[in-house]
């Protein structure tokens, strides 16, 4: 069991939605990971599609807010629609 791989599991709840991370599991190989994910995370029709990804293959940013990683988007308020003043009498905008 020691060398079974840790997999992260992503489930698409229904057509039209993105896959969402739901948790992890251990499996000997990809196929077993997929079967285990079905048994573990979709016992009540929670999904129409499953992705399993080896946890070691995921490259992640730090979730810490102080991380300067997200700073470049912080000072670009002009990327948001609310940055622009449009008079109330302009329709459909």
């Amino acid at each position, binding site marked *: *069991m*020691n*060398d*079974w791989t*840790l997999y992260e599991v992503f489930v698409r709840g229904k057509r039209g939605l993105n896959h969402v991370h739901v*948790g*992890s*599991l*251990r499996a*000997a*190989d990809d196929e*077993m990971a997929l079967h285990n994910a079905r*048994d*573990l995370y979709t*016992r*009540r029709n929670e999904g129409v599609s499953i992705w399993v990804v080896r946890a070691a293959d995921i490259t*992640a940013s*730090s*979730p*810490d*807010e*102080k*991380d*300067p*990683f997200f700073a470049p988007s912080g000072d670009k308020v002009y990327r948001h629609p609310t940055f622009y003043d449009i008079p109330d009498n302009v329709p459909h905008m």
Partner: protein
Amino acid sequence: MIAALSEEDLERHFEHTLEKDQRIEPRDWVPDGYRKTMIRQIAQHAHSEIIGMQPEGNWITRAPSLRRKAILLAKVQDEAGHGLYLYSATETLGADRTDLTERLITGRQKYSSIFNYPTLTFADVGVIGWLVDGAAICNQVPLCRSSYGPYARAMIRICKEESFHQRQGFELLMTMMKGTAAQRDMVREAVNRWWWPSLMMFGPPDADSPNTAQSMAWKVKRHTNDELRQRFVDMSVPQAEVLGVTLPDPDLRWNADRGHYDFGELDWDEFKQVVSGNGPCNAERVEHRRKAHEDGEWVREAAAVHAARQKERQR
């Protein structure tokens, strides 16, 4: 890329996240105490789900109808699933689930005292669903707001599934209460045995629960043991009335001043005995888990060899 922050800065940031009632997520810096407490709490919870498969699993082959058997199988499978969601959450804190299983089967980590009581009749399956799962829901609903994100998310899934567990138990008991006199006696006898152990599931009284204050400060616990126990009693009394059973407590009565039911003193000596390993089934439960783990060794080995061979062939 990450600026070197001092321990104090990190601690302040952690506290600030809690103050804003935001969740702590896997790669966040946390104090050692928080990490240890969360691993212990989540692991004990995972162990409880896994050991909790045994008392009811006992009745799968002897369920009185195919309907009850299918329900019981689904329920016990859910308990396995709950254990796995929770082991998954511990791994986000750096724990290793093989190591946690080892700690369980060598008696170094505990699980809920309730699963050390035997299931003597099929009515026990119903009472476990009604009272034991009912108490678990009382405990677990506030944990959906635990400060540790992966634990809170696992609890949301678990609570949704526990609702089926409690309802199937209550329905089973209602069916038996409409049956023969012998069936009604079975229900009453099971309620008498499980009522007090169910109240003990909330843990020692607040005055005797040294970790509560720290856990509340870290928002990994939202209510004290006594608050939750009271809530459970208040919920259960009207349910017992509908069912037509008397809860085995002569001191149980409505207190209009408090707006709650008063109830008798729990046998804390019994609780301590069961927690420290001297309950009716402690040795049997751990031994069964150890045997299942060891009997599965060849399966794990075969799967690993198969995976290695498949990899070889793909090259």
